């Protein structure tokens, strides 16, 4: 679910039509609906900064609905050709150098994806926020006149490690500004900030996202280089058999 506002931004564009005063249902519905673009094709740059190292990766990302995503690393040269395929709630990684496809087991879903602050779980979640969370519109703690503030708590049957999420959305253009992940004790664990709102692929989107893991002192910056909404691509682009092809 998290990826709806997390990595979903990587794969789907969105645009809000600003409206005067919105209910929480309307806000979530608007967001969920907008993320569900039929398909997208984007080139993004991912910069990971940790205490020990820093790395920048350029990736090509294809998506179809909420179910299918294919990510292919373009650079650095050492990682070129590594692919991640997500189909439904299953995920595989392909390593061309050793010609191996590895399925990501459920036990590794909370592990980091490609060393970033995003987890594998962020990528495979396919439900909407409304499906997985109870939502409540609250006054924004610091600037209620500027932002909507949605507090989300998981439903009883939702499988998640997060005890609570909060999303801040700008009132004027309904662009998300910040999403905070809390644990069961309501301690902040991760913070995702949205910046660089501009028009790309015919829509206004935050083109920079920064995910910070607080206890690891690391952050991952995702920058859109280009995005194309509803492009034409082969029907079997997301097939398992095509994963090994260049």
């Amino acid at each position, binding site marked *: 679910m998290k990826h709806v506002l997390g990595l979903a931004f990587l794969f789907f564009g969105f645009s809000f039509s600003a409206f005067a005063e919105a209910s929480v249902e309307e806000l979530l519905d608007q967001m969920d609906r907008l993320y569900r673009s039929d398909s997208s094709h984007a080139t993004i740059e991912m910069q990971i900064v940790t205490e020990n*190292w820093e790395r920048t990766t350029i990736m090509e990302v294809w998506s179809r609905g909420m179910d299918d995503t294919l990510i292919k690393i373009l650079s650095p040269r050492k990682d070129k050709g590594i692919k991640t395929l997500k189909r439904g709630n299953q995920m595989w990684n392909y390593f061309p*150098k*050793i010609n*191996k496809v590895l399925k990501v087991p459920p036990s590794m879903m909370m592990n980091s994806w*490609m*060393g970033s602050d995003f987890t594998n779980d962020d990528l495979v979640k396919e439900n909407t926020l409304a499906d997985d969370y109870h939502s409540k519109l609250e006054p924004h703690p610091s600037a209620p006149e500027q932002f909507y503030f949605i507090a989300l708590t998981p439903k009883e049957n939702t499988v998640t490690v997060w005890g609570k999420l909060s999303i801040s959305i700008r009132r004027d253009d309904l662009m998300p500004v910040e999403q905070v992940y809390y644990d069961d004790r309501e301690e902040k664990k991760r913070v995702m900030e949205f910046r660089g709102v501009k028009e790309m692929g015919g829509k206004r989107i935050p083109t920079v996202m920064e995910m910070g893991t607080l206890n690891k002192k690391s952050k991952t910056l995702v920058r859109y280089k280009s995005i194309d909404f509803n492009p034409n691509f082969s029907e079997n682009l997301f097939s398992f058999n095509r994963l090994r092809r260049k």
Partner: protein
Amino acid sequence: MLILKLAFRNLLRHKSRSLLCGLTIMGAFILFSISLGFSDGSYGSLIRMLTDTQSGHVQVHRQGYLERPSLFRHFQLSQEIKQQLNDHPQVQAWTTRIFSSALVFGEKKSSIARLMAVDPDQESQVTRIREKVKAGKFLSDTTDVYNPILIGSHLQKLIQVKVGEEVAFIGQGADGSVANDLFTVVGIVGKGSDDAESRRVYLPLKNAQEFLSLGDRIHEVTIRLDHFNLARKEAESLRNILNNEALDVQPWQVVEEQFYKAMMADQQGNWISQGVIMLIVGLVILITVLMNAFERRHEFGVLLALGTPPGFIFRSIVLEMTLLSGLSVLVGSFFAYGLNWYYSVDGIKLETPLEYGGVVFNQMLSENSMSVLLIPAIFSICVTFLVALYPAIKSARAVPIEAIREN
């Protein structure tokens, strides 16, 4: 001087009795010496086995690595440090290493493996890794092989690969990337599942640096000294010479702390069994001395009746026994030295190899050192002196007429 002459004369007067007594003390001394020799030898051979196969005598890491080993706790070995190591008189050889772990894929099976990257030429001078290759070739003996590796025999059985076959590695790179590459098995190391090397994969340092995106950085410098006993002193000396707060220089006792603590605890326990041997040795000497003194009660009675002062008799008995013990120890030292030397060269082979703290040893060796002769020698002479006091006092205080009647 007179008393010394008399003591010698007394010993020679009853040659068979003195010989029997002397042989008993000598036997006890040799038993104690060999027991100590095997005890010290077993620990010595364990330490050698550990330091020769994996730890070396002194290691250098980045601060914190020993407490929490991590791929990211690496350091660069500067020319200055290399020169300082080369110039140190006690450093016989040194080598550099990298450690990590990876998923290793054979054709059909896969497993997690501990990777140990070594400089093939330097590593052979520090540890006996080259001797551990039981099939195929050592890393530096191969040419034109893409990413050569040595695979531990246990791991080799697990993932079912043979020499010459390719395996795939997937791990974490030091730059956060997914390290993945193909490697060629050029040799198999280790004998079974118990030894540490049987579960490892050895690869050349340069290949590991590229695979793990480490550049020219390493995790460890392993140093070989002239003897493992020098480790603590030379670690301190190297710490002062390198004078680098970012680096942690530690002897094998700290590097292999668990092993060392277990060994020390075991050694403490071993003194209980040595105590039992000491008790047996003490009892044997006590019986011998008592037998000797009480057999001569008649003689002492006559001496007392003739007016010999009791103090003279007391001193004479104590001196005779101590002298006999000293002579027995002296002669016994040659035998004890010979036996300890023999077993230190060609120990007792164990049918089933024993595993101790990850180190497997298959023969018990003795240690031929001064301590294995000196401790039993001092003990035997002191015990003889002490146990001679009782019969000496008893004989000196004897009533002459009663002592003469006892025969």
